[in-house]
């Protein structure tokens, strides 16, 4: 069943049915996405999923064979129409920063400002340097700056001509791990302050979570799920998303009731959407009706999603449906007094916490994060209790 999200705000960037292939290899496969003004989108995926190609297509460095891309009501590419990158007004921040090595920082930032006069240019460079807090580097050359500084200069250079859209290609990957977090937060603040629409490409979900308003998880040239970081983590649409984002373990369960699942760890209560394969025929009919009813009102505010959230109507419950549950490490809480205690089969020290793997039975394990002063020995029993707010149901694996 299609979930229809009604547009309340105007779409700013729109990618429609874009396909691209080298020889027989499909890089982008009929891909569509939309971004609103001021929103920060993020394309997340492992290498080879097509995220960089999509970014470069939006920038104009790649030419998709099919589909259209438009930005702010201007068509960038469609049949027979192609605006070259230098005419698009899209800013880019590169993985290796790509600062011009022969120019000073000031000249780098003012490189894209040829339409302004001298004093305007100077003023704009000042604003930018102030924004990123590197005024003292004005006369230096890129190689005299640290990686983190170069990164911020690259951002300033891309933002200086006031681009309609900013694209960031793995902007943190050539930086030290310690720097990444702070820069990610800085960049988000700057973009929000300027109300700039942006798309970032990354393979690192933590970066995506920190920076993005919306994340598109990509696989095989398609976007598998486009949603807020919170929903991506807590409401993954399928087992690929669940497996890619965050850690977790999968245990079997049986749906007893709306919001209740029976598992080997006991009865869990929480929110979940009834999976399609657990719905009765009558339910499908009902859902179709509610859909057309929804259209009929035409106010475009109520969505199917919100309809499900209210309550699952009686005909939709198919009791005894077998499912798999994804249990996140943060769903499991350490409690020495709990009657439920499992054997520790492995543990990884992570500084502030331990990640314990607990044995349920020969086939099933559970992951659990515990503050690091709770140092329990391997093969000893760890008392836990379940605190599941969002129950993530995946199709029963056979």
């Amino acid at each position: 069943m299609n979930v229809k999200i009604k547009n309340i705000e105007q779409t700013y960037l729109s990618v429609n049915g874009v396909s691209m292939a080298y020889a027989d290899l499909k890089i982008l496969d009929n891909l569509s996405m939309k971004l609103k003004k001021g929103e920060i989108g993020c394309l997340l995926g492992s290498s080879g999923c097509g995220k960089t190609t999509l970014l470069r297509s939006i920038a104009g460095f790649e030419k998709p064979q099919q589909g259209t891309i438009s930005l702010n009501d201007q068509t960038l590419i469609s049949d027979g129409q192609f605006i070259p990158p230098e005419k698009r007004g899209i800013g880019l921040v590169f993985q290796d920063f790509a600062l011009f090595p022969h120019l000073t920082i000031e000249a780098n930032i003012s490189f894209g400002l040829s339409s302004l006069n001298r004093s305007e240019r100077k003023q704009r460079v000042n604003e930018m340097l102030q924004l990123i807090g590197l005024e003292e580097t004005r006369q230096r050359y890129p190689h005299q700056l640290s990686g983190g500084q170069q990164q911020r200069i690259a951002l300033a250079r891309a933002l200086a001509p006031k681009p309609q859209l900013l694209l960031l290609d793995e902007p943190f990957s050539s930086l030290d791990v310690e720097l990444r977090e702070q820069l990610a937060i800085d960049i988000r603040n700057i973009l929000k302050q300027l109300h700039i629409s942006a798309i970032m490409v990354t393979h690192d979900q933590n970066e995506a979570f920190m920076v993005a308003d919306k994340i598109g998880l990509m696989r095989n040239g398609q976007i598998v799920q486009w949603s807020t970081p919170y929903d991506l983590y807590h409401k993954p649409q399928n087992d690929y998303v669940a497996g890619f984002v965050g850690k977790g373990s999968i245990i079997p369960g049986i749906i007893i009731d709306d919001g209740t699942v029976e598992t080997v760890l006991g009865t869990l209560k929480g929110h979940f959407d009834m999976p399609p394969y657990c719905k009765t025929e009558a339910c499908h009919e009902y859902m179709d009706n509610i859909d057309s009813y929804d259209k009929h009102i035409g106010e475009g505010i109520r969505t199917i999603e919100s309809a499900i959230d209210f309550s699952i109507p009686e005909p939709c419950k198919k009791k005894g449906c077998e499912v798999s549950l994804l249990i996140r490490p943060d769903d499991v809480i350490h409690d020495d007094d709990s009657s439920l205690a499992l054997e520790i089969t492995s543990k990884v020290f992570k500084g502030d916490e331990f990640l314990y793997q607990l044995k349920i039975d020969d086939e099933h394990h559970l992951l659990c994060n515990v503050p690091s002063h709770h140092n329990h020995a391997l093969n000893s029993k760890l008392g836990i209790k379940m605190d599941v707010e969002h129950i993530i149901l995946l199709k029963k694996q056979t």
Partner: protein
Amino acid sequence: MTKQLKNLHWNFWLIGVLLLSLFFSTPVLTVFLSSVFSSGLGESGIWQHLLDTVLKDYIQNSLWLMIGVAFGSLIIGVSTAWLTSVCEFRGRRIFQWSLLLPLAFPAYIIAYTYTGMLDFAGPVQTALRDVTGWTARDYWFPEIRSIGGAIIMFSLVLYPYVYLLARAAFLEQSTITLEASRSLGKGTWYSFFKVALPMARPAIIAGLSLALMETLADFGTVEYFGISTFTTGIYRTWFGLGDSGAAAQLSSLLLFFVLALLLLERWSRRQSKFYQQSGKKMQSKRIVLSGAHAWAAFFACLLPLLFGFLLPFFQLSIWSWETADEMINKEFFILAYHSLELALITAFLALVVALFMGYGKRLHGNRLMGSLIRMTSLGYAVPGTVIAVGVLIPFTWIDNTIDSFSREVFDYSTGLIFSGTLFALVFAYLVRFLSVSIGTVESALEKIKPSIDDACRSLGTGGFKMLAKVHLPIMRTSLLTALLLVFVDILKELPATLLLRPFNFNTLAVRAYELAADERLQDAASASIMIVLTGILPVLLLSYTISKNKS
């Protein structure tokens, strides 16, 4: 193929590169075509005559030269490369760059110098007679103007090609490989012959084929030593017998030899990629030599440097000092100025063409463009004599056509517009040396990350403006290097200059050749030393790069 051609994006750059590479390939194509056609026509009996008489000598002499030079440059090049890259002994640091100095000597100049030193009136034999009291009839002295002498001359100035590539290969071998061999109980010598040498073999062969190409291309030395080879044969057939068809046929035969070497070089370079290893590089732990071993290593490195550079350079300095009053005059300065000006302008043209091709490839690179550029780069393998023949044939034809047309229509003789002017000479230089500037420009462009281009375009600047504002400033050092390398190569060039120079136009190289031909070897020194001194510049540059890479 036709489908591929249809899909090609025919833009300004591709058409430009196509036209340029066709233009610069005309000499080689002409040589092949005219040799095919004239053999069919059999217009004169000269080719048959050559076939019956001298051709066997040409082939024999060229083969002996190649075998001898291969032997000589391998022994000198590999041993010095091994010593300076793997061992540690007194003087190693100086030898590692100064062993390249003989490259500054064109073979014909070192040949003139040694002939002057070793002939009857020269300093060596005079000293011999003074010491022993012998007269001319009392002793035998080896004749330098022989095939053996030529082999020694070539080996002394061409071994640096082998040295350079072998040294790079030895340095790239991981210490671990050699240590593994030694830990298995094998000695240093065994490890050298069974491990290090086989691994460096592709690189050594590549260096050797370059040295042999130079040997085949040489004209000045063999001409002066009176050895009949292809290049002297082509010259004589053209000037003495006036048969362009036979000259073209000799040229294309020579090209087959060159082609074999070229293929050998390409193949070796491809092979050498498989032998490159990652991991720890040699440098850190050298084999420290002491006592007799250290002295042996010291002399093994000193001798090539001494005979290949120091001694002849010293002799040239003395002669130019002695003849300065007579030779360094207004005429000499005009001559030097002409040479330098011509070399500089041509080097600049080569750079512009190379930039167009390299930049076109970067912007719209495709396979056709890549092959066209590679085809243009083949000129370095073609001997100057062959290029001269390939330039003269079409240009003379064009000149004569224009002239007769003009005489018929306007009753005015235009003369030789192309073949009789500097145009032909500059064109020939470009054909021969474009590859040097193309190579330098391409590697400089490769060093600029593609994301720099993307960054530039996303900031609203593309095309020629991007080249001017971003690429050229970043590449300026490499561009100067390209300019210098071509400049020096042109200054040294002899055979094409000799065949193509306009009437009454002289260069330093031609002047040295003429004076030597008149047996005025001492008088030739001032022109020679100018060429050698400028030739030192790129060698120093190369040495600097080597020592910089190390640190």
